[in-house]
């Protein structure tokens, strides 16, 4: 039952895309691509839920030979454990909702069918990535989602900014992917396989490595993680994600918030068993720094989608931090909750943007044209088309319908959007108990603090503080968003007057997602043994770490109740693996105090953030402008996004282009120049015999040869007087000479 289900899950969206591709080739549109794609996605969703029922006390995997060489075989297959199933459900669920939402949002777009086809292709790729049981398969899905991301970011490719953004996204992630590929090469060379599971899989083989190989394994792990850095927009490769907001908003919700960017986290989690202390720490720090930096940048954005984009980066950093700190389950848990509430936030913002579009449409056109975001941006692109790059760097050009400074007071106009977005905001901010985000975030904080206390590790204390600050900042800027958008007085009366609630196709997905932002989602993590962190044979606690005396004897694990992380005592089959712990779980040793402390602290910082936000943006007792002026340098740093774009555009891109030009010139002048030298020498020697040659400098040995030949011919042809007598004379003289010579011999 498992195999056909998985096949169905993969094939449904693929078929939807194939219909589009084939119909496109013959220039006939399939009439209802939107329904086709949506139905395919819903079918996949149903199959995923069926799988949930099927599954699965023990992981299941099936492989087929994909490439078989004389000595090596590369297999393709799927590996189905609880995490896979949860991911499948998350992906299909969000994707289905986004499909439905898009039917309203994208209605009237000239490339409306294509949008759904791309969504289908994306869903297929993402699902393929999720179920793959080997690195090659993951890599394939990985690149394919990258392609879809490219196509969808550049969906409105008439805009120069979109065209730039999609290219940037693909290239930036590809840098990370190359790192991942190098990591794969390392693993392959060592183990002669790229399969992860089973007897001959990488995990089983890596478990047997001795300590001498730890440096190697750390490097390999970090390189694989490079792929995740790129795809999950971690520092320093995060800059593509904010630009990716040039894509249609449902795309931002699906790809750049809920699923694709989370694939990096998923990959890192999959790689959990081969992480060592070093690579774990690197991952944790990258995640922690990303979480903090992106959050600070988000504070000063005015583009509603960019705020959410930086928020996404920040939350992804959170998940990385969790996995790096050993909180496997918490990381994935947060991935799930984040997928829903962030998709909700994006779709909500899409709803707002859509409302403003409608204004334009009514203002300019009687026909109800919903493709205004598109046309709007198009005009925008024309206006500023001359210098897209500088626009990017400054980040100051915000489309009017996305600029929060034009919003305000919308809660009256768009009640459903408002309510649902508020729920999501409360969730992401970590407002306690009735919102899912609180539980997952708290699990991470507790896990990190737990490890810090357990290992007595300075690193993990630092990471905990980073995470905590990020949580506070997150609460602050998310409420800033809500206050600026939905509260207060309308800042732009004209736009406000035209705004309206979105159609049902858009609000229904919002409502569903709002429900999913409540702890109901935790049901996925309900069964105490449902998700077990895999063992980490090469992760050892430092020598000075406090190891609880019962760590070997207790059957430990991690439990998530209906209301999130409430206790953490359960089975850990591999418990006796070695004496130093090797518990790749959620720091349950320090659970008691750690989780309590973490929870209290996180509620405090969240409350502080919300309170400050209220003061700044609702009560306006504090002025954001004056604070910004006071801390001008810091504000600048945030505003300019830590100068990453400037650095990349000004240094790396320029350097690459410069190098390319250099190489091309080198090709034209030096490579030919070397042979030119040879050519000149050749020419001069010949000149001594045949007289004057023309001294023109030519490029290329071939030219030289031709010219030399030409010149020699020019000289020699004088001999061809055309007078027969001369020929005869020469012939005879030659004969005489020859005979004389040979007689002399």
């Amino acid at each position, binding site marked *: 039952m498992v195999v056909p289900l998985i096949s169905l899950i993969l094939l449904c969206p693929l078929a939807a895309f194939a219909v589009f591709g084939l119909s496109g080739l013959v220039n006939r549109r399939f009439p209802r691509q939107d329904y086709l794609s949506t139905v395919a996605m819903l079918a996949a969703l149903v199959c995923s839920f069926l799988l949930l029922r099927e599954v699965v006390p023990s992981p299941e995997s099936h492989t087929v030979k994909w490439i078989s060489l004389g000595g090596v075989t590369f297999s393709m297959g799927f590996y189905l454990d609880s995490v896979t199933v949860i991911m499948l459900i998350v992906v299909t669920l969000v994707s289905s909702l986004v499909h439905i939402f898009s039917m309203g949002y994208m209605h009237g777009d000239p490339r409306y069918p294509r949008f759904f086809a791309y969504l289908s292709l994306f869903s297929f790729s993402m699902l393929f990535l999720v179920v793959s049981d080997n690195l090659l398969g993951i890599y394939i899905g990985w690149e394919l989602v990258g392609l879809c991301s490219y196509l969808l970011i550049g969906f409105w490719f008439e805009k120069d900014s979109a065209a730039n953004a999609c290219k940037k996204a693909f290239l930036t992630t590809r840098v990370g992917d190359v790192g991942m590929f190098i990591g794969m090469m390392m693993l392959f060379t060592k183990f002669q396989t790229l399969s992860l599971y089973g007897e001959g899989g990488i995990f089983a083989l890596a478990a047997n490595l001795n300590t001498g190989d730890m440096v190697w394994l750390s490097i390999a792990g970090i390189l694989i993680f490079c792929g995740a850095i790129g795809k999950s927009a971690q520092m320093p490769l995060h800059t593509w994600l904010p630009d990716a907001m040039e894509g249609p908003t449902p795309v931002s919700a699906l790809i750049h918030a809920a699923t694709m960017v989370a694939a990096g986290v998923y990959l890192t989690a999959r790689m959990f068993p081969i992480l060592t202390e070093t690579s774990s720490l690197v991952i944790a720090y990258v995640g922690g720094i990303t979480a903090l930096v992106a959050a600070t940048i988000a504070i000063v954005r005015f583009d509603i989608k960019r705020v959410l984009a930086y928020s996404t980066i920040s939350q992804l950093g959170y998940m990385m931090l969790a996995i790096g700190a050993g909180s496997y389950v918490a990381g994935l848990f947060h991935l799930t909750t984040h997928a829903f509430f962030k998709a909700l936030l994006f779709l909500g913002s899409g709803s707002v943007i859509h409302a403003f579009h409608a204004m334009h449409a009514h203002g300019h056109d009687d026909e109800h044209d919903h493709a205004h975001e598109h046309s709007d941006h198009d005009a925008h692109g024309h206006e500023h088309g001359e210098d897209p790059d500088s626009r990017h760097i400054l980040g100051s050009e915000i489309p009017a319908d996305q600029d929060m400074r034009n919003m305000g007071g919308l809660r009256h106009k768009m009640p459903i959007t408002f309510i649902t977005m508020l729920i999501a905001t409360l969730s992401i901010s970590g407002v306690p108990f009735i919102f899912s985000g609180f539980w997952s975030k708290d699990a991470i904080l507790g896990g990190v603090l737990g490890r810090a206390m357990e290992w007595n590790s300075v690193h993990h204390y630092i990471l905990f503080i980073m995470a905590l600050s990020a949580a506070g900042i997150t609460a602050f800027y998310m409420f800033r968003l809500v206050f600026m958008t939905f509260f207060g007085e309308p800042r732009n009366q004209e736009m406000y007057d035209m705004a309206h609630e979105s159609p049902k196709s858009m609000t229904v997905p919002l409502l569903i997602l709002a429900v999913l932002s409540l702890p109901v989602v935790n049901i996925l993590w309900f069964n105490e043994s449902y998700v077990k962190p895999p063992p980490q044979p090469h992760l050892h606690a430092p020598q000075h770490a406090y190891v609880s005396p019962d760590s070997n004897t207790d059957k430990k694990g991690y439990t998530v109740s209906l209301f999130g992380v409430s206790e953490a005592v359960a089975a850990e089959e591999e418990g006796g693996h070695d004496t130093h712990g090797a518990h790749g779980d959620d720091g349950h040793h320090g659970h008691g105090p750690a989780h309590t402390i973490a929870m209290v602290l996180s509620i405090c910082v969240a409350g502080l953030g919300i309170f400050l936000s209220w003061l700044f943006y609702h009560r306006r007792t504090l002025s954001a402008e004056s604070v910004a002026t006071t801390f001008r340098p810091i504000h600048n740093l945030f505003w300019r996004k830590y100068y990453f774009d400037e650095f990349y555009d000004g240094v790396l891109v320029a350097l690459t282009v410069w190098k390319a030009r250099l190489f091309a010139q080198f090709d034209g002048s030096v490579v030919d120049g070397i042979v030119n030298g040879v050519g000149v020498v050749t020419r001069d020697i010949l000149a001594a015999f045949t007289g004057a040659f023309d001294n023109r400098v030519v490029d290329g040995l071939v030219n030289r040869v031709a010219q030399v030949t030409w010149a020699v011919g020019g000289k020699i042809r004088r001999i061809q007087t055309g007078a027969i*007598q001369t020929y005869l004379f020469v012939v*005879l003289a030659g004969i005489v000479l020859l005979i004389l010579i040979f007689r002399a011999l």
Partner: protein
Amino acid sequence: MTLQHYLVISAILFTLGIFAVLTSRNAISILMGIELILNSCNLNFAAFSRFMTPPEDISGQIIAIFGIVLAAAEAAVFLAIILAIYREFGSIRPDEVDTLKG
């Protein structure tokens, strides 16, 4: 009258023919030079036939006869060409007819 007498005469004729062909500025005198050369060859054939082969073998003479025939044919064609050239170039000086000049 040894073989060498004839060979010497033939050699002189040959050389003179060559000289004429080389130096003459008139196509017809070149033709005459060629005729000299052919004659020298024929003379050689006859002489060798006389001195180097058994008396009853007169193949050399027959070859010489063929040579004469060829000379006749050659002269006819040559003169025809000369006429054609004359019509084309208005001259039969070979140095003025140099279309083949490279």
